[in-house]
């Protein structure tokens, strides 16, 4: 089974050191993840939801190879890549790319947009001229048509939605098969959120990039994901088809999340506006 799965995280565990511990060596004592198993098939879109502190971001970092799990393994098409020696970990980095929540902080403020997108290419040994060419193609792919003029701009000259699209272009430069998105729209205005959601959907549908969307925005999951995994206190408490889980959550915390998101999931019910005022 695992041989055919694009990305398989089996029984992942991750512990962090106790707060204020002087010696931060070895596994810590605070469990952030416990026995989490998540399989992502090629071209699939999976949502990971849960309240804050449930371990969503830890899972994203483990899947993207930014940290190694304390327990369990991550395998790409059956090859164990984490924990593993550096050479095999590189396979994970090629396969999975992480996009962070806030493009304002994830992009280097002094690096021009074009250079930011070219960087992963040049690191892989692509020639300078070809990298420039491919960089512009990537920017066009994410809907930034500004060409050379845009490539010469700094992140601060772009809007939030444009910046997040630059971050996506950079992640796509290594042609990953899985994109892990950690709260991709949380830092964006409602007016530009649609740009990023539409783009992600197009990438998923047209290019077959698998998506792992880590978020607490259930409306985003409803708009993007086929399958959803509910993470509470470091363990998966519910898993299933996105629409079914959002319509009828079984676990208590999942139900509370859905209930709390009702205004955003159901849209505006003009009569139901809960006005706080007198």
């Amino acid at each position, binding site marked *: 089974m695992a041989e055919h799965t694009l990305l398989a995280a089996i029984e992942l565990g991750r512990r962090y050191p106790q707060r204020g511990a002087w010696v931060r060596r070895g596994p810590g004592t605070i469990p952030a993840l416990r026995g989490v198993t998540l399989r992502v098939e090629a071209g699939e879109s999976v949502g990971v939801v849960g309240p804050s502190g449930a371990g969503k971001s830890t899972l994203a970092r483990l899947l993207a190879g930014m940290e190694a799990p304390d327990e369990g393994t991550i395998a790409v098409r059956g090859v164990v890549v984490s924990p593993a020696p550096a050479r095999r970990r590189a396979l994970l980095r090629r396969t999975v790319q992480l996009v962070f929540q806030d493009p304002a902080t994830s992009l280097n403020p002094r690096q021009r947009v074009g250079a930011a997108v070219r960087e992963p290419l040049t690191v892989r040994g692509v020639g300078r001229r070809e990298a420039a060419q491919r960089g512009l193609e990537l920017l066009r792919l994410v809907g930034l048509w500004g060409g050379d003029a845009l490539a010469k701009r700094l992140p601060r000259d772009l809007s939030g939605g444009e910046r997040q699209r630059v971050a996506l272009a950079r992640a796509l430069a290594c042609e990953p098969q899985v994109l892990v998105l950690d709260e991709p729209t949380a830092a964006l205005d409602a007016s530009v959120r649609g740009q990023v959601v539409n783009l992600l959907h197009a990438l998923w549908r047209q290019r077959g990039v698998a998506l792992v969307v880590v978020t607490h925005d259930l409306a985003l999951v409803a708009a993007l994901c086929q399958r959803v995994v509910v993470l509470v206190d470091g363990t998966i408490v519910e898993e299933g088809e996105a629409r079914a889980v959002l319509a009828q959550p079984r676990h208590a915390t999942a139900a509370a999340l859905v209930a*709390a998101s009702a205004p955003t999931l159901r849209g505006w019910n003009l009569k139901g506006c809960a006005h706080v005022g007198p």
Partner: protein
Amino acid sequence: MSPKHVRQARGVVGIPSHSPFLARVSGPHEAPNCRPPDHQFFTAGGWVEEQRGVLAVGGQRRPPTPSPWGASIGCCLSAGVPLPYNGKVAGLASVEGLEIGFPRPPGGVVRVVRGGEFAVTEGDSVALVGESGCGKTLSALALTNLVPEPGRIVGGRVVVDGEEVRGLSEARLQRLRGAVVGYLWQEPGMAFNPLLRVGVQVAEAGVLRYGWSRRQADCRAVELLRAVGLENAEALAAGYPHQLSGGQRQRALLAAALAGDPRLLVLDEPTSALDPLAQQSLLELIGRVQKARGLAVLLITHDLQLAARVARRVVVMYAGETVESAPTQELLAAPAHPYTQALLYCAITPPGGVPRPRGEELATIPGRVPPPEAWGGVCRFAPRCDRAMARCRTAHPALTELTPERRVRCFLHAGAEDGGG
């Protein structure tokens, strides 16, 4: 506060140094329940004097009285001292034709807010809605002249509690801050000083307004933290901000904002850093606090949906000016300005309540908010507007009254006039 500063303060009000009252005051901290007649506090703005009309009875110990509200909000009113700040009601805060300018190196000034208009009455809830960079936060900061340096208010009227804010001295402004207008910031992690204990920061506004002693401040801080629904308040008050979770910090910040018993609470994107569960409970808490205290609320958000949940009136800002202002229900049912309409349709779940099926394109507003240099004398939304006419590109509409409750800045509506600049 050193004895020297207390001496200076005495000089200010001219109480003779042989006053029997002062003779018994050994210092503000040594006799915690005996208040000197006036105080000085060192704040970010420098030394600030506070004179109060109410003198504590010299020498008598005044233990903090138990709150008549029990554990509910409003406990601070039991502090035994002042009545509400000025005794005035209605028209709590109003902003008209607000202009905020930042110096631009070769001698010029860029006005980043030009035409901000909104009003909040006592006990009302108003939302300022718009994309980032539209001047929402700056306009709210202008209420207490907290516009960050080197920017300042360069035009328009800002009236808070019956006083024109622009001409006020720093000392008078300091009284508005916390005591009339309380702020709840977007990033609870950044709003707290990481080096000071939570309790000290929660009680600060009360210390400034009521002159709480250290012991009283500690006591009130715990009471306030409990009142915003935090368990284990003693431990939290004694701890540092980094020891709190995001939701706890946001609640502690709310407690801090309430410590000075403000009448207007400014909420700047209060829930954007929180998960839905924490969001829901914070909104419910704010609603309870508002009812219990008759607070007015000014919510700043880019999310029209959140505004609809909280506010009775919505003021939409675009590119530094107010473009529409209406009661929430009317605005949602029939948005008058094309920008408001566009914002409404940007939600993942549009009005009408049917969630968009997966894969359907979401609406966006093409382009972006123009920079202040490009505002010119034309409609600022015209480049992104699908209903722009020739007139929109040659003239700037004024904010026009549609009904007594509704105003809109758009030529599509009959009677809209050329607003100049």
